[in-house]
């Protein structure tokens, strides 16, 4: 166990600046949106949209835009997975196996008395801690913005909604990162890992977001997309938690199956020189 902790702390130490820096950057972005909400007249948006029914139909994907929660959801939660996704995939491909294979340090590390399973699990633990901390900083700053925004205060501060989005985002980011980990164990190349993981990420986003535009008989495909289980509109805008447990359990199951697959592949892999 001490070896696993040693690897985790070494990685956290190495990535601390990017972890905190990125978290603060994204958090400030979210904080700024909460401030902007105060200066926007939401009733004017409602009026404008009523004159543009086609735009209204498209934006219905994000729900009612006349509450500060809806605006924050549209401006932040609906899109920030792109930035988070790129960043997490980059961190995974650079700090997990491909980085060590490309730096040629893997031989030295795996020649020490640590099993491949423990080694990979230490990477998995590091990645989860990493995404938990980054998003804690982001959500912390968003929460700070909400607590100082008159619009949110007037509408009501629903911390349970923010917490639910945070939890489901952790589980969802976990699937992005663990997909990258799986490709990392298969390819042992950072470029191929990034390309494959990002391709899967965008396909999943497309299927899980735009399934409603598919013919009815194909709409069942939504269930295979992890984005289908990232319903921030229901959680944050509407405060509906009916599917929260299901979504979290499905995302955890996806995480677990990706980790197990990675472990099975890595145990059989030859480590290249």
């Amino acid at each position, binding site marked *: 166990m*001490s*070896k696993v902790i*040693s*690897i985790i702390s*070494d990685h956290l130490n*190495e990535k601390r600046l990017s972890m905190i820096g990125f978290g603060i950057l994204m958090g400030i972005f979210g904080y700024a949106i909460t401030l902007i909400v105060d200066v926007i007249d939401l009733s004017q948006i409602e009026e404008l949209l009523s004159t543009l029914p086609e735009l209204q139909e498209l934006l219905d994907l994000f729900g009612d835009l006349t509450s500060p929660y809806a605006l924050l959801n549209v401006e932040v939660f609906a899109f920030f997975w792109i930035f988070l996704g790129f960043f997490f995939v980059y961190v995974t491909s650079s700090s997990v196996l491909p980085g*060590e294979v490309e*730096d*040629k*340090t*893997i*031989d*030295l*590390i*795996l*020649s*020490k*008395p*640590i*099993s491949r399973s423990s080694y990979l699990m230490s990477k998995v633990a590091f990645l989860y801690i990493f995404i938990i901390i980054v998003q804690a900083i982001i959500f912390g700053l968003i929460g700070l913005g909400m607590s100082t925004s008159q619009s949110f205060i007037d509408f009501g501060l629903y911390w349970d909604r923010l917490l639910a989005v945070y939890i489901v985002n952790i589980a969802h980011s976990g699937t992005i990162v663990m997909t990258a980990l799986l490709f990392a164990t298969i390819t042992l190349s950072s470029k191929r890992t990034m390309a494959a993981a990002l391709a899967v990420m965008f396909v999943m986003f497309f299927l899980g977001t735009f399934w409603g535009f598919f013919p009815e008989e194909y709409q069942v495909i939504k269930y295979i997309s992890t984005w289908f289980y990232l319903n921030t509109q229901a959680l944050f805008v509407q405060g509906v938690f009916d599917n929260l447990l299901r979504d979290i359990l499905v995302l955890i199951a996806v995480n677990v199956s990706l980790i197990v697959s990675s472990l099975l592949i890595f145990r*059989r892999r*030859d*480590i290249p*020189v």
Partner: protein
Amino acid sequence: MSDIVISCQNLTKYYGKSRGIENLNLEILKGEVFGFLGPNGAGKTTTIRTLLGLIHKTSGQASVFGLDSELNSVEIRKRVAYLPGELGEFEGKSVRRILKYLFGLYDSNVKWPRVKELASILRLPLDRKMNHLSKGNKQKVGVVLALAPDTELLILDEPTSGLDPLITMDVYKLLSEKQAESGCTILLSSHLLGEVEKVADRVGIIRGGSIAEVATLQQLKGLALKRVELLFDSHIDDTTLRTQLPTDIIEELTIEDSRAYLLVNRENLRKLLKSLSEVKFSNLDISSPDLEEIFLKYYSNDSTIYQEDKTPISEGL
């Protein structure tokens, strides 16, 4: 308890269709320093990496301390210190941090005063970033990694690569001291015959993925050749030169225009130099041929020649 520390029986590793090692048989005894010699691409590193479980064998058996190299890999690595041929970059990390991180992966604590002592002997700056170190200093990090832990087996893949001669001497001195103090077994892989013979009790010569010969240090001396290059002012006549030289002690003689290249056993060098007093050359250069050249001399690819050429070595042993 068995005296055999490393045992390979018909060990074979293929990378797809490419041969790594094939039917390699090897036994290394407890407490010995075993030199693992072979030209580049012969299969030295593949053998070592298979023993450490870094790659999976295609067929055959490999065991260390009587434990299967794949099934008991972690148990084996608890008792082994390894210096790979290439240490890697460890971008942006100081030597101290790298050493602490890697020593932290052993079950028992590696004594830090010992690490400092080794670093001091090798003149290794602990607080310098790894990627700012010269190749030689990087190699010193690997030497510290191999020598500091209390392990029963040291596996060193080209340990003095990139080191200057003085530090190379220090490394071999440290190795000998460590072996004398702890009685550990050392597997020393190299393509430099001259270096291995300084410390090895026995050597295994690997070529084309299989062990070509296992010899003692005494036998190894038969392989100790010197290359002598003679430069003349003008074109030298082949027949004339051959009559002036003691051809019975010359292993190989090549004459090209105004140059002559000779291969002689080290023990016959003095005799050759005496006979050269009669030869009017303008320059003379003596060097150690690399292992590749020695292999070409003794181990031709052709199996028939291989058998024939092998005989003189054994006879001369």
